């Protein structure tokens, strides 16, 4: 799988790409990949970036992959499926289903209708499409690329200024983004070969493609974010523009106050005790989080921005909007 580096003409070494490209502002790119481990708030950040770009007048679409529907959930909207659905002014959302992408890809490749119909009915074709390693990921990235084109391949396709991708969780995410490169080296001829190359260039073009990692202020997510930044750079050729540290507790109490409250919790009973104890817990958590924030700043190269923990039962669009103002 690493054979591609031998064919040096095709791909610049990842590090070189990362170093040589200037870094325009994140939202001025055509594609922003939002990544990070599961459960850190990737979708909220992706939607937040989308809201921010839309507010600046950019026509923006937030894409989810592998048929996820987390973005529509934030908007409290019915599932969007494989459709570009308008959520707000200037902001659309789509959930990319690989089978639909494959279908669309074939439709674009084959102009003869009878042939297409035969193909879709054919068991062997469906088998091949399902079984070819990485093909689902490839057509998904293909669809993302298609959305980002000013000259859309899809008939009457809307033009977007910015495409934001809510990428799969860490681990799978690296594999996902590597697919075009892997494919280009496996299929050495044919349309897929050249298309895979196009997609790889698109993903690794730092002028137009940006990436953000979302992390939580905890030991292991911090370790993983540092590893993810390195893997994105070295294995995929994507350099990270921002690391968002999500869910940072407010520092409501200073050390002296926390000590006083601990004393109060020990003496009192009932609600006063419970409230004092909760305050001590909060102080302790906030302190641990600040230590993780410093670790993160030391371990990643990209600038780190913090996002506050929101004390809300469910994070809806208004919460995402409030976060979006801090996403610069």
């Amino acid at each position, binding site marked *: *799988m690493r054979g591609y580096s031998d064919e040096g003409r095709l791909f610049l070494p990842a590090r070189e790409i990362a170093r040589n490209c200037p870094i325009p502002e994140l939202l001025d790119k055509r594609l922003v990949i939002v990544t990070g*481990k*599961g*459960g850190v708030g990737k979708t909220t950040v992706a939607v937040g970036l989308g809201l921010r770009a839309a507010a600046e007048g950019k026509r923006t679409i937030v894409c989810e992959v*592998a048929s996820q529907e987390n973005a529509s959930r934030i908007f409290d909207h019915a599932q969007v499926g494989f459709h570009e659905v308008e959520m707000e002014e200037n902001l659309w959302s789509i959930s990319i289903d690989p089978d639909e992408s494959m279908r669309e890809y*074939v439709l674009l*490749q*084959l102009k003869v209708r009878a*042939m297409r119909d*035969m*193909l879709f009915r*054919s*068991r*062997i*074709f469906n*088998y*091949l*499409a*399902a*079984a*070819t*390693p*990485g093909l689902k990921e490839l057509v998904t990235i293909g669809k993302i690329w298609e959305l980002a084109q000013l000259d859309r391949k899809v008939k009457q396709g809307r033009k977007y200024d910015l495409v934001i991708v809510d990428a799969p*969780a860490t*681990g*799978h995410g690296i594999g996902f983004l*590597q697919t075009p490169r892997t494919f280009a080296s*496996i*299929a*050495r*001829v*044919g*349309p*897929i070969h050249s298309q895979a190359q196009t997609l790889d260039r698109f993903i690794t073009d730092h002028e137009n493609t940006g990436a953000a990692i979302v992390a939580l202020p905890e*030991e*292991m997510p911090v370790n*993983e974010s540092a590893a993810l930044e390195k893997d994105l750079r070295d294995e995929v050729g994507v350099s990270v523009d921002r690391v968002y540290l999500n869910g940072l507790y407010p520092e*409501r*109490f200073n050390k002296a*106050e926390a000590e006083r*409250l601990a004393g*109060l919790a020990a003496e*009192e009973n*009932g*609600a006063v005790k*419970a*409230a*004092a*104890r*909760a*305050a001590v*817990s*909060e102080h*302790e*958590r906030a302190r*641990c989080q600040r230590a993780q924030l410093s670790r993160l700043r030391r371990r990643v190269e990209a600038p780190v921005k913090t996002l506050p923990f929101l*004390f*809300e*039962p*469910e994070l809806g669009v208004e919460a995402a909007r409030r976060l979006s103002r801090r996403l610069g």
Partner: protein
Amino acid sequence: MTAALDEILEGKSICICAGSGGVGKTTTSAAIAAGMAAQGLSVCVLTIDPAKRLADSLGLKELGNEATRVDPALFEAQGVEMKGELWAMMLDAKATFDELVARQAPDEESRDRVLENRIYQQISSALAGSQEYMAMEKLFELHTEGRFDLLVLDTPPTRNALDFLEAPKRLTQFIEGKSLRVFMKPTGLAARVAGRGASVALSVFKRIVGFDLIADLAEFFNAFSGMVDGFQARAKRVNVLLSDPDTCFLVVCGPQGEPIDEAVYFHRKLVEANLPFGGVIVNKVHYPADELRAEVDDLPTALTDKLGDESLAQRVAANFSDYQALAERDARNIEHLANELRTAHVIRVPHLDEDVHDLAGLEQINRYLFATGEERIEMAAGRA
């Protein structure tokens, strides 16, 4: 009242922790394994997480495809009596697949042909699904060896429950390649039987993906042809093992709406697949201070009286009310979960003050996992 985890796992030989990413599955798996080992069992925990989180949790520098024993001294240092043995393994999916091929191959030449094939290399290392498949394969292997009393599997962070459950089937079907292999011999009888539609499909597919890929696939299936039966038989036995009554699936989730919905979905898939569901573990729960709610109305005043500092009192009260709101949400979500799953086995682990990434943390979690429901509430209240 909710049973303690050791009651749920009584007599089980396999425990599979399933759930979406970011809910603390790896930590929970490690805690369960450590807790059961402490009670006297010989336990091995397997993780396929590529981020080496488990290694961190157990203070191990490096995990390999071989089980490594966690130093009992580490537990003693935490004041935990380790009556049994805790072993850990970080699964290398590619190495496991290679081992499996080596075992199934009729001779060295066939083995090498497969190992050197590009399609195989891609499937075994990069293809989503191969990790899941190999996890189950390793689980089966260890179970057959019978070295351990209990195996705890930390499943990979799939975004879709179906992926995990269906990956082995999909991969076996791919390796079988029945419908495909027929077309790899265009001169054979089978090609004629298959009909025109299929030939067109194949030629179109060739056109789209490029000839090389098809040729590689043909070579792959030829190389694999002698092993298909072995793989099928093994996959069947793995399936039997997963649905065995001695196997137990635990669903791990968080208390927020989305992880709860995913847990409900995952549970439904387990039931549909006739897999043995053992219970659900909800991590990072904000416990409510139920008995205190009546007094909360005049809290700011009460606090000001005690503290003599109005600003501090207000902040303490605001903080308390924020956490109570989260606690109420968690309680609502968990009630919904218990109703949907029709189970009393919902184990709630509280949101601890410090995040868990070492043995001391695992020990703290275990105080809740291995407690009965009543004990758990008492402990959480003791914190309040």
